[in-house]
């Protein structure tokens, strides 16, 4: 059970048990008690952020809006990402930025190994503690796709910090959205035996914890250098999940599964334009 607390000037997240809403009587405070699962929490969190940041704009806070184009490369892999980000700046020197945006990511690659995706199989359970657990190798099968190509559109969460007038360090991550792309034939490898079968990108994306994630989600660590008032260049690393769902539940042990995930680390460069 968790509570999320916001006011219009500061955005803070408090997670604790047993908090009673009547202990928080400030008029500008919005308190909600959640007895929902993690997925619902994330959706409500996003809505609350949007509501509170709307209030923030009315108090004269500084806002940056960017359009961003990024190219990622790794061995036999590439991405093209286009994003729009609305960043609200915080602090007396406006160094901290928290933003929401939308990102389109197109991933194209050759000969990529996708592995069993559901946390229940990779880690044995779906609790948040799986982030600290080793994978159960016996449960993980492989699906090799010759030419994967996945497109995704996601809501993104962005955080950045202004290191100097011209340099910003930042992190962003996709939270929820959808994916699309053509059907691909892949090689399902289960020990000595295997099958060739078709798969399509998993249509629904959501960020949860570790292997509980579903679908295709992009994230970046970057440093951005502003060339002038409008234009900036960025360089960093992209960590991208892409996911395919096979036409049948091809994995049978220890239980049926049709979702296979690839985790890619890419070097990325991009350009940003301040609107």
């Amino acid at each position, binding site marked *: 059970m968790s509570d999320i607390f916001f006011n219009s000037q500061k955005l803070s997240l408090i997670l604790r048990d047993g908090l009673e809403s009547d202990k928080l009587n400030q008029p500008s405070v919005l308190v909600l008690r959640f007895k929902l699962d993690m997925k619902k929490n994330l959706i409500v969190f996003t809505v609350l952020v949007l509501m509170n940041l709307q209030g923030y704009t009315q108090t004269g806070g500084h806002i940056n809006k960017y359009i961003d184009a990024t190219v990622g*490369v*790794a*061995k036999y892999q590439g991405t093209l990402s286009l994003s729009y980000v609305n960043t609200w700046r915080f602090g007396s020197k406006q160094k901290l930025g928290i933003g929401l945006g939308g990102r389109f990511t197109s991933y194209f690659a*050759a*000969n990529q190994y996708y592995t069993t995706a559901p946390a229940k199989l990779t880690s044995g359970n779906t609790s948040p503690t799986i982030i600290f657990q080793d994978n159960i190798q016996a449960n993980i099968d492989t699906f*090799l796709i*010759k030419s994967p190509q996945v497109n995704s559109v996601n809501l993104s969460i962005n955080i950045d910090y202004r290191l100097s007038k011209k340099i910003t360090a930042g992190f962003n991550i996709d939270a929820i959205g959808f994916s699309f792309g053509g059907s691909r*034939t892949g*090689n399902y*490898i289960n020990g*000595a*035996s*295997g*099958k*060739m*079968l078709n798969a399509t990108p998993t249509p629904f994306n959501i960020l949860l914890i570790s292997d509980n994630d579903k679908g295709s989600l992009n994230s970046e660590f970057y440093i951005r250098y502003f060339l002038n008032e409008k234009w900036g*260049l960025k*360089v960093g690393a992209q960590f991208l999940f892409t996911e395919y769902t096979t036409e049948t539940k091809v994995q049978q042990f220890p239980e049926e599964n049709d979702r296979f995930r690839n985790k890619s680390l890419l*070097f990325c*460069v991009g350009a940003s334009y301040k609107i």
Partner: protein
Amino acid sequence: MKLLILIAFVIIASCTPQNTTPSVPVTKPTALDTTKAQLLKKGMFIGLDGPTSGTASIYDQAGSKYVLLNPFESHNGPDLKVYISKDINANDYIRLGNLQATSGRQVYSVPSGTTIADFNYVHIWCQAYSVDFARAEVK
């Protein structure tokens, strides 16, 4: 310009050599003794992605099944495996292991419990690139 050089460096650095199959024939002794084994199926290789020639045979020796490539000659490639499959496209297959050499006699064990009657093809399969290098229909 510096950025372009950096990108070029990353791309070049990411191009590492592929694992290839030894070209030297296998010399170590094998479990299969064709004088004591029963020939079940046999077929000739045809090259699909380059020149490959030779014969694939499936033997039963005291209940154990083996695939013998002899004679055998193939061009090289990355991540070459030996598959046996039920159909021509290897939609349902069993992987016998890495191709031991691009030339010469070689033997592969078939996992126990495999119903050989269902498997009609032997493939040299480039797994990393999903390419059927060569195929022999065995009957």
